[in-house]
């Protein structure tokens, strides 16, 4: 057994026994990554914080099912992704759209303002602009350009066609370019 797998299993065993300190250790190791994912996928801090709590409460309830086949971080990431996507889907369903429409690519391609490539894109500006994208578009962009998934993987995760993933990511980039160029 690898040392990391051994330590994952030992930590999970302590959490299962109701050791709050152990679960805090687990939280501190993984909360940043999962919060970042939730924040960027959902586009606002309040929803991301609520969901982060649900993710960790759900993780605590499901620790019995952790067998160490995958790393603890991977197991948590999948669990978090499922919960985030449920949230995105239900919100999109309420808004009546899952694959949302932005303007045409050709209209978006007209950025107007200053060239982005001539200056460093400010992280806070980018986070803010991400929050202005429609849900489906933002989810595809975050998974592809931030999290580094391939279009096929994005399509599998979001339950959409690969072509739709490309279209959503591409529109998101154009829209971000426009938002960041003003």
């Amino acid at each position, binding site marked *: 057994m690898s040392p990391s797998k051994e330590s994952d299993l030992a930590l999970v065993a302590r959490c299962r026994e*109701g050791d*709050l300190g152990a679960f805090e250790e687990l939280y501190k190791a993984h909360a940043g990554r999962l919060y970042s994912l939730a924040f960027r996928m959902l586009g606002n801090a309040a929803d991301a914080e609520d969901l982060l709590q649900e993710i960790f409460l759900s993780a605590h309830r499901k620790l019995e099912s952790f067998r160490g086949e995958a790393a603890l971080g991977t197991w948590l990431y999948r669990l978090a992704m499922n919960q985030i996507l449920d949230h995105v889907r239900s919100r999109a369903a309420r808004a009546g759209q899952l694959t949302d429409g932005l303007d045409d690519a050709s209209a978006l391609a007209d950025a107007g303002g200053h060239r*982005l*490539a001539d200056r460093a*894109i400010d992280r806070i500006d980018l986070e803010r602009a991400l929050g202005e994208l429609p849900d489906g578009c933002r989810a595809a962009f975050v998974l592809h*350009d931030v999290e580094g998934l391939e*279009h096929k993987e994005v399509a599998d995760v979001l339950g959409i066609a690969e072509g739709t993933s*490309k279209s959503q990511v591409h529109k998101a*980039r154009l829209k971000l370019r426009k938002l*960041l160029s003003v």
Partner: protein
Amino acid sequence: MACERNIERIQELVDGTLGPIRRAELEQHLAQCDTCRALRDDLEAVRDAAAALPQMRPPDGAWLQIAGRLRQEGRIRDTAARRAERWSYGWLAIAATLVLAAGASLLVLVRTPSPATAPSPAPGAVAAPPSTTAVKGDPSVEAAQSAVDSAQQQFEKAIVDLEKIARANSGAIDPATSAVIDKNLGIIDQAIAENRAAVKAEPSSVAARETLFEALRQKVSLLQDTIALINEMRRGNNAAAAQLVNKS
């Protein structure tokens, strides 16, 4: 506007999925078309900036809420007296450090020229080192409980002192940042109130104490950050102030 038929090909180039023949054709076009080249450069800049986004820090109150709910659901096992002793000593040490840190924060403010602000309390009011008499001697459960009480008092004293400083100088922070700080303090205050109630209901619960201490520690930490922010704003050090705002 970029040449419409090339937009999709430029996107595929940025994706890294454009085949070699189409890529060569596009490169030829890009060499001649400023608009399309600008589009490619900008989309690459967006892609690279997205890939470089750093991990964010979860809000301070999140862990407290999770710990509180786990306890409400009865998923946290209260532990033996031996563990109570271990934790009580640790918390007392942390409380002592925080009280000293509160004094240091105040000292910086007092030394900084401050136009038209309310008078701050004297440094001596917070800088006194904590008593450790409660933990010397017999490490029994009673001694541990006494140490826990002492640590809690130290935390609460540090918070009162830090709040005085922060309130007296809050005008140095812009209203939007101040609103965020107030909101976060409100969340922590709520967690502290809930955890106090839990400690009152179960005075011997180590888990309840731990969570209360964590809430108190987070409040001290946020107040210390607030005071550091006030100091940086006073000095006109906007870069350092922005780092502190991003941290919170």
